[in-house]
């Protein structure tokens, strides 16, 4: 199915109506629900959000086949990093704690020896996700911010930095894989144990989280990496 391409004159409420995944996206720009009939253009003007950047993020997030190559040259790296870091905050402060609470409810509702192992598996996974996010926040993003501000502050010793976006690209493993294992275990293999509704709630959240991560990773792979690569090349030729 071809996804709808979001444009400036669309109403925010219609976008959510058409695609519920947009719900998690708007708060990352500081947009709160209760926006009435405002269009994308209205809200961006009101909130001082770069309209082209907003459209690029929304479309890349919502549409797996969206190839934004033409618009990439004008992307502001700092804006991009701040958007991505905001998403990370949302995972760390909202999504992961909620998932943890669902797992713990599930645990209290089932009586099966394998639940201990399932919980361990989940805990290990959360550690991995946190490591992944911390690496981006603490190593990759500061480097990218640094090279993007190079033109403004040319005294930064860019040449001495032993890092490049290539390293980031190589390390950018997918953190959804174990999530899909967990989903399969709950759908196909974990025996019924009087946990019907809590398991459904848990699965719903796992599916949403997985989708969110995949869409998030797509922004990093299709926008962030190419934009920073382009910057690196410009710096080299200077």
């Amino acid at each position: 199915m071809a996804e709808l391409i979001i444009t400036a004159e669309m109403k925010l409420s219609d976008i959510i109506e058409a695609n519920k995944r947009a719900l998690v996206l708007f708060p990352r720009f500081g947009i709160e629900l209760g926006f009435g009939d405002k269009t994308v253009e209205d809200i961006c003007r009101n909130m001082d959000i770069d309209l082209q950047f907003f459209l690029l993020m929304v479309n890349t997030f919502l549409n797996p086949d969206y190839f934004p190559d033409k618009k990439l040259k004008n992307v502001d790296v700092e804006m991009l990093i701040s958007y991505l870091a905001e998403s990370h905050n949302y995972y760390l402060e909202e999504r992961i704690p909620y998932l943890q609470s669902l797992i713990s409810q599930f645990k209290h509702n089932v009586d099966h020896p394998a639940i201990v192992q399932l919980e361990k598996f989940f805990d290990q996974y959360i550690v991995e996700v946190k490591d992944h996010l911390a690496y981006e926040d603490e190593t990759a993003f500061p480097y990218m911010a640094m090279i993007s501000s190079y033109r403004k502050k040319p005294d930064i010793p860019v040449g001495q930095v032993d890092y490049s976006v290539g390293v980031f690209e190589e390390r950018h493993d997918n953190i959804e894989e174990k999530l899909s294992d967990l989903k399969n275990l709950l759908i196909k293999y974990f025996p019924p144990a009087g946990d019907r509704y809590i398991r459904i709630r848990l699965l719903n959240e796992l599916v949403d989280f997985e989708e969110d991560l995949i869409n998030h990773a797509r922004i990093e792979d299709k926008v962030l990496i190419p934009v920073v690569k382009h910057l690196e090349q410009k710096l080299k030729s200077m």
Partner: protein
Amino acid sequence: MRKTILIAEQSEVVRKGLIQIIGSFDLFQNIHELACNSNIKASIIKLEPDILVINPILIQPEFSGWLKDYRSKKEMKIAAVVYALFDDELKDLFDEIIQIGDTRLKIRNKIDSLISRPRETQRQDPGDILSPREKDVVRLLAKGLTNKEISEELFISPHTVITHRKNITRKLNIKSVAGLIVYAIINGIVNVDELHDNKNV
């Protein structure tokens, strides 16, 4: 297309009788025979028969595991030749049972239906989709062994271990070792005590 059939039966009278009857059907290009089970694996691997007709007495537990494993890769039907009681556990292994008192016509019908009918793989218990060998691999993985250690433990090549692991992932749709451990506990392939050797758990 003409088919290949392998008949493993220790009684010469019965074996020759079957060859005579089945040979008259004109369905088979090649009819091979074995009087004991010593070369049976090698013969199956070499001939890749479409049908194996075998006396259940010739099937030792280890061989039955091997057969299940083989059939997860190759399309081979198995018919039992029965004239004595046989171990009930083997029943699932057979697609057809030929009784010693069956008439030529009855045998013909059974063989015909074996050739035309696809094997019922879905008959297996869903919790039992892994072959015994694959379960061994899962159990050792859960205990924290590396591919190399598993190959030494099971006397198979590291390459075979990798093939088993690929098949396990494909069948279960579980990619991580941590996920496989949970699966193994749920299905009783490994028990919690055995995990203590695994430092990653």
